[in-house]
């Protein structure tokens, strides 16, 4: 029963072929099996993702949820597991899990159960975690995600990973080890915060796929608002289960990699672990079913000492919580409002647009390329809104606007590590600038110069900058004709070549006119003028 039907990536689908450990990062086509007498390795990656639910209060208590509050300032009697306290389920957390389940195409269980998972740890005050081991709230879903091949945006492939289940559970507190005084300090602020554990089936085969799948999940969670899903703040934590095997053989022994706190590290950790396992096996070693931690400084995984040995969690039903019953339109009892019960259909109707739908809408509405829609949603929170705002305020076609957003704006922001919201150029200013360009008052080259000024954030409008720097296009046709004439007169050889039929040289002349006018001439107009003069 252990092996799940392979899906997603066979060796052919995955662009990275894993082979006998010669080169650490073997790239390129599939390894020709048989040549060496050995089949290539097939890596298998599954993920367990803990997403902190975005809610005002904790899963089973009324204490507030807040990042970086003073230690132990958000702890109720229940969170500290004072004797005699009982859990009371937070409705908001249930709704967040239902939303997430629906967004991930899961079957929502109308009856789910809570269980206790026991282990002793300083930041687990009750000695057990309340989770959903037997019957989780959502099962059997799927997540489609896209990734580009060889970093080329134009070559995107879409893949699907199955979602095994989503379960509600409590977060633990945090232990802070003070090695100097050899003591452990415990902060229970996080203890009892609601988590959704999303279990992804082992349908992925490399770090990049894992990272792309998690990124898509992150976008979905953020679109739903069910989790803020910021990895750096621990709202999204990813554990990767990695194994390798030969095609046609059962899955290999897997290891669990923990301590991954960014998408980049996720990709790195998974790839490292795959390569490590291959090398280990190639060298006649065996893989232990163990938990390993990713060391981001060393870029490798190391066995976790304190997780050695198999734990028996001694699961048992949580006796203080009745089964969690959800309703749909059909099963909803009469005279009950949606505020008293959780109605799956009601939530379904109110789901916001998911990233995939948003992308499709962007492509349809603005006529931009699909890969651009990915970049819009992929990169930065608020980028789409920025784009849409610019489009609203300018006559320029969205297909042209997107270039300014994705090339100019994004690269500037990246260079200066700024978020969209921190951009010194507002959507209003950019639209203003693009309008000047669109009305042919300035050239594209001049527009870049203006933008460079705008980044300084000195509060000037594009028009002011244009005036100040005298960047407006030369509207006086006579003046332009004169300049063209000067250029023609000074470049006899080029003129001859053009007249002999080498039209390409015309571009050189256009460029020369541009230079002469400091970019203040409209190339289309210049071309016309030059052509006219040359045919005279």
């Amino acid at each position, binding site marked *: 029963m252990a092996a799940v039907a392979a899906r997603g990536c066979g060796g052919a689908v995955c662009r990275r072929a894993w082979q006998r450990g010669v080169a650490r990062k073997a790239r390129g086509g599939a390894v020709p099996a048989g040549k060496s007498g050995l089949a290539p390795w097939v890596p298998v990656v599954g993920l367990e993702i803990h997403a902190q639910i975005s809610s005002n209060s904790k899963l089973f208590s009324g204490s507030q949820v807040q990042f970086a509050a003073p230690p132990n300032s958000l702890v109720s009697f229940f969170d500290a*597991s004072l004797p005699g306290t*009982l859990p009371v389920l937070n409705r908001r957390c249930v709704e967040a899990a239902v939303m997430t389940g629906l967004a991930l195409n899961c079957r929502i269980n109308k009856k789910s159960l809570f269980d206790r998972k026991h282990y*002793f740890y300083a930041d687990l005050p009750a000695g057990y975690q309340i989770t959903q081991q037997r019957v989780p709230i959502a099962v059997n879903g799927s997540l489609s995600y896209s990734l580009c091949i060889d970093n080329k945006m134009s070559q995107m492939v879409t893949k699907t990973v199955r979602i095994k289940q989503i379960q509600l559970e409590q977060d633990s507190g945090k232990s802070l080890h003070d090695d100097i005084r050899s003591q452990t300090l415990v902060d229970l602020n996080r203890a009892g915060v609601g988590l959704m554990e999303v279990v992804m089936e082992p349908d992925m085969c490399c770090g990049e796929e894992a990272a792309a799948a998690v990124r898509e999940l992150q976008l979905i969670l953020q679109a739903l608002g069910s989790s803020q899903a910021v990895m750096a703040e621990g709202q999204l934590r990813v554990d990767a289960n990695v194994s390798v095997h030969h095609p046609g053989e059962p899955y290999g022994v897997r290891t669990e990699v923990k301590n991954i706190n960014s998408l980049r590290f996720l990709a790195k950790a998974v790839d490292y672990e795959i390569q490590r396992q291959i090398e280990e096996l190639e060298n006649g070693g065996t893989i232990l079913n163990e938990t390993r931690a990713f060391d981001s400084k060393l870029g490798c995984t190391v066995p976790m000492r304190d997780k050695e040995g198999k734990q028996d969690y001694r*699961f048992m039903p949580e006796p203080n919580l009745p089964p969690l019953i959800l309703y749909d339109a059909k099963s909803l009892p009469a005279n009950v409002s949606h505020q008293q019960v959780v109605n799956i259909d009601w939530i379904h109707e109110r789901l916001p647009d998911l990233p995939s739908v948003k992308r499709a809408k962007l492509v349809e509405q603005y006529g931009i390329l699909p890969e651009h829609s990915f970049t819009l949603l992929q990169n930065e929170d608020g980028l789409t809104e920025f784009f849409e705002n610019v489009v609203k305020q300018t006559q320029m076609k969205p297909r042209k606007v997107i270039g300014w957003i994705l090339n100019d704006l994004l690269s500037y922001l990246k260079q200066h590590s700024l978020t969209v919201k921190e951009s010194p150029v507002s959507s209003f200013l950019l639209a203003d600038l693009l309008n000047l360009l669109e009305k042919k008052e300035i050239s594209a080259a001049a527009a870049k110069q203006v933008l460079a000024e705008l980044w300084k954030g000195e509060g000037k409008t594009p028009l002011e900058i244009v005036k100040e720097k005298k960047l407006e296009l030369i509207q006086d046709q006579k003046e332009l004709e004169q300049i063209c004439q000067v250029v023609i007169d000074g470049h006899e050889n080029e003129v001859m070549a053009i007249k002999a039929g080498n039209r390409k040289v015309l571009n050189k002349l256009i460029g020369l006119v541009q230079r002469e006018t400091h970019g203040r001439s409209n190339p289309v107009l210049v071309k016309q003028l030059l052509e006219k003069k040359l045919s005279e």
Partner: protein
Amino acid sequence: QVSVALKEGQVTPTQLCQRCLALIRSTKFLNAYITVAEETALKQAEESEKRYRRGQPLGVLDGIPVSVKDNFNTAGIETTCASNMLKGYISPYNATVVQKLLDQGAVLLGKTNLDEFAMGSGSTDGVFGPVRNPWSYSRQYKEKSVSKSHSEDEESNWVITGGSSGGSAAAVSSFTCFAALGSDTGGSTRNPAAHCGVVGLKPTYGLISRHGLIPLVNSMDVPGILTRCVDDAAVVLGSIAGHDPKDSTTIQDNFMPFELPDLTDVSKLSIGIPKEYHAPGLSSEILALWSKAADLFKDAGAKVIEVSLPHTRYSIVCYHVLCTAEVASNMARFDGLEYGHRSDMNESTESMYAATRREGFNDVVRGRILSGNYFLLKQNYENYFIKAQKVRRLIANDFVKVFRSGVDILLTPTTLSDAVPYMEFIKEDNRTRSTQDDILTQAANMAGLPAVSVPTALSEKGLPVGLQFIGRSFQEKQLLTIAKWFEKQVKFPMIQLEEVKRLDHGVFQHQKSASFS
């Protein structure tokens, strides 16, 4: 009746409270109380007195002295569970039931003794020592026992209260309070009630909030009520029952308090006598009382029929698995970190845990944790825990079938025999004792049904014997109405205590009939 006296001003809440406190002092040897909250009790009595003077008492319970088993959280008053683990622990909050009593003006005298973490059936296994049954010092018992064990030291003749709510039962029985809260997981309220000659009510699971009750077995624990008469039990029930947002297993509805009617006609009732309760070890004396009680109903015109609850005999072993498993889980929180005892051992967190738990828990608790964890191991879970849950369902279904067949109420003995002397009791270990003593009470917890033990008669040794009524789920009113009729028929004698007599300056004349309602 005391309530009437309070209303009429024949006695003030402060006088009443002081009288009870004096009695607690004079009966200290019973070891019924772990903590006596003299100061706060007197303050509460004073408040109550003001309300009476204004003519605005909060209800029947206003000014009534009550006690609470020491496994209910009480803000500002130590809550120990009779364990080293929680010695000195002062909870920051009140259990819902405690809060409800206080909200209705009851005066909380103190916290009563129990077996450590309510694990036991004798009230002999707590760190504060065993509770002594007030009947050991009654004229009734002394007269009968002296002749038999003349040679023995009188000191060694005292009998146990039963448990684990023995302190609460002894407190009510010795007149130190008018009502007490116990807890009932396998019979812990009814068993000591029977041995101490008081009424012990275990309501339906889910009718009363468990918030603030330090759990033994969450899925079976119910706060229990110990009083001197059935009417009092109904009053206390009315004041503490109903939905609690802090306990998700309570019923959704609010509970409507009721007064018990005086039943005159029992001819429409069908009383079931479950034959399985004729258990091995049942004393002939109790068997005789049981059939006498059945005859009482029969003679009054009720239909009395023998019924069968075939799975009853598996109840104890099933309970053993479910109880220890939950105990193992519930006790995991006592690690010395957040509260309670913490060992000085500080080599590592793990060694501190181990030492804390070794020092904090007695053998009984540790033993149950050990076996519970064994049953929950992955390789055992299916064979033990799941099986036990299935058996539990069968036991519950037995009751469903019997009640569906038209039986209104079941009549059974509460205990196999009357209370045994302490010296006798401790010859067997806690586990053996619990196994024997819970045998007649346990199944009601498995099924979550309401049950009440009513003092019926004195045994040959002059000790109380109780019989148990088990009712349908949430049919407390019917259960108690029948119990009240029965109580009236059997005319259980008053305990005659030298200590009480000495202090009996009139106030307790009102108490002669033992009730406040």
